[in-house]
């Protein structure tokens, strides 16, 4: 848009644009910071969005931009698709959507680098550093694109959630990655070689697929978070290609943030990142299970009426929700039950495991959707000391995160994972469809303890029954 401005302004334009980029960066940093507290998070997101808008508008004044027809077409199309996706998605499908958005972001960075390269009729005039970063941007962006869509397919069930692997796959993946990096070197040395370029692109797309396919469905959140970090890195690389500070800084911020988040998630599951990426664990695997006790395996069942009496006369009830609660769409009904109990003077708290739901913090979002105030939600570290003084724990659709084998059975695949110590409470009630195993594919000794009662059935129907029974107590 610079051509519409008078000359005396155009002279100062490049510097002005850089300064406004600096302001946009400040918005991003402040926005990310505010996203860190529940009270300010929404404002933080809006600040970041404002920073983005500022960045986009000021870029339109860049002197390199001379035509706008295609920009308008692209922005309108993308906005329309983005708005529809964001408005339509169910809160339970959030991990899939983040995967999709992430894939588009990574793909865009690869396309930007490729597009910049295509401007040079003879790429030999591009500087070596530009060629290296172009190669890296295409590499990281492409693998983010295909990797995210494989993750999406696994979450949606289009692709088996099982760990699909064969001996040597890890080796092939690592060899391919080294191969791509070597080829980027070759490409930098001789950018006229079209074949090398196509191999880099093709191999990068392939690596995205083959490195996510062997990872089990249970680990997808970690993978998406890692890919989120990659897409930031890809944007940053694209920034190097274009010599654009805003891209470099914002991309690096997201790259670092994504990596930290990935680590936090791994820690919550007691897995190392290496183990997630190369371990092929999770899904519906029949990983070696050893229930430990082997003796008495009878469970005690309870009914809605019986349970209603137990909770109505308790002084403290802790609800432990898992993904099963979300699948059954029972967030709203649990909120109703909780409200009824509170009216009777029962203290109600929610104990949220860091990986409850399908992403860290996912359960908080789902409960927030049902109007559960966030100050009733307690993290694992806050709620664990309270179980000993709790009368009844309602475990709804959760399994592995309350499995005492994580503490007692060193042979178990989940051994060492921090869990919610619900077995310390006076009584536990497990809402479950059947006695099937959880994500990790192992049995849960909690079900067979004397303090535990099972409430079999669909979580929503069971809670509805409980809700009605509470009226008659």
């Amino acid at each position, binding site marked *: 848009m610079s051509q519409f401005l008078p000359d005396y302004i155009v002279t100062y334009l490049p510097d002005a644009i850089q300064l406004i980029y600096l302001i946009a960066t400040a918005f991003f940093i402040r*926005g*990310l910071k505010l*996203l*860190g507290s*529940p009270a300010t*998070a*929404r404002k933080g*997101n*809006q600040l*970041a969005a404002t920073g*983005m808008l500022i960045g986009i508008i000021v*870029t339109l004044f860049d002197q390199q931009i001379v035509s706008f027809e*295609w*920009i308008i077409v*692209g922005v309108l199309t993308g*906005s329309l*698709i983005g*708005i529809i*996706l*964001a408005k339509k998605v169910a809160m339970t499908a*959030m991990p899939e*959507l*983040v995967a999709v*958005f992430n894939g588009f*972001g990574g793909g*865009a*960075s690869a*396309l*930007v680098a490729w*597009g*910049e390269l295509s*401007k040079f009729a003879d790429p030999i005039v591009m500087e070596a550093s530009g060629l290296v970063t172009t190669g890296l941007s295409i590499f990281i962006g492409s693998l983010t694109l295909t990797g995210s869509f494989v993750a999406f397919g696994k979450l949606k069930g289009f692709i088996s959630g099982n760990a699909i692997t064969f001996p040597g796959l890890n080796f092939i993946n690592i060899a391919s990655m080294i191969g791509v990096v070597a080829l980027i070197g070759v490409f930098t040395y001789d950018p006229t070689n079209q074949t090398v370029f196509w191999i880099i692109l093709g191999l990068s797309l392939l690596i995205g697929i083959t490195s996510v396919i062997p990872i089990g469905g249970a680990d997808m959140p970690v993978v998406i978070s890692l890919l*989120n970090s990659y*897409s930031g890195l890809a*944007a940053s690389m694209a*920034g190097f*290609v*274009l*010599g654009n*500070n805003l891209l*470099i*800084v*914002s*991309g690096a*911020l997201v790259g*670092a*943030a*994504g990596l930290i988040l990935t680590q*936090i*998630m791994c820690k919550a599951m007691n897995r190392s990142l290496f183990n997630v990426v190369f371990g092929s664990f999770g899904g519906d695997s029949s990983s070696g299970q050893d229930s430990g006790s082997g003796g008495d395996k009878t469970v005690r069942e309870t009914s809605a009426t019986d349970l209603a009496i137990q909770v109505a006369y308790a002084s403290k009830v802790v609800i432990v929700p898992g993904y099963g609660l979300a699948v059954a769409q029972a967030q709203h009904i649990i909120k109703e039950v909780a409200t009824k109990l509170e009216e009777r003077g029962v203290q109600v708290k929610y104990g949220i495991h*860091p990986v409850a739901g399908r*992403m860290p*913090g996912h359960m*908080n*979002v789902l409960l*927030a959707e049902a*109007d559960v*105030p*966030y100050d009733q*939600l307690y993290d694992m570290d806050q709620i664990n000391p309270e179980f000993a003084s709790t009368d009844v724990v309602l475990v709804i659709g959760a399994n592995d995160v309350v499995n005492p084998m994580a503490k007692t059975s060193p042979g178990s695949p989940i051994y060492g994972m921090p869990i919610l110590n619900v077995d310390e409470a006076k009584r536990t009630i497990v809402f479950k469809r059947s006695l099937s195993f959880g994500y990790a594919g192992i049995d849960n000794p909690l079900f067979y303890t004397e303090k535990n009662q099972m409430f079999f059935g669909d979580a929503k129907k069971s809670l509805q029954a409980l809700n009605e029974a509470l009226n008659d107590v």
Partner: protein
Amino acid sequence: MSILIFSLFIFVLACFIGFELISKVPPTLHTPLMSGANAISGITIVGALIVTGGEGGLLTQVLGVAAIIFATINVVGGFMVTDRMLEMFKKKGDDK
């Protein structure tokens, strides 16, 4: 100091800021944070605008427009869905 070295400087410093910012976030907000950070990574739209709006052949135009569409989906969808999530976070007693 060459431009590349200068760029590397700000890249590394920005990485450190990213690490510091995120390490202090409660688990409650991890999902919105992931989604919000993801929307920020759509900043690549700025690059897409520069590539598309500049001089270039047909290939450049096609790649550029595809990049704009992809990045805009990421930005618009990402910020909107994050806002949708955060809108629901309420303290006890807050007005609906």
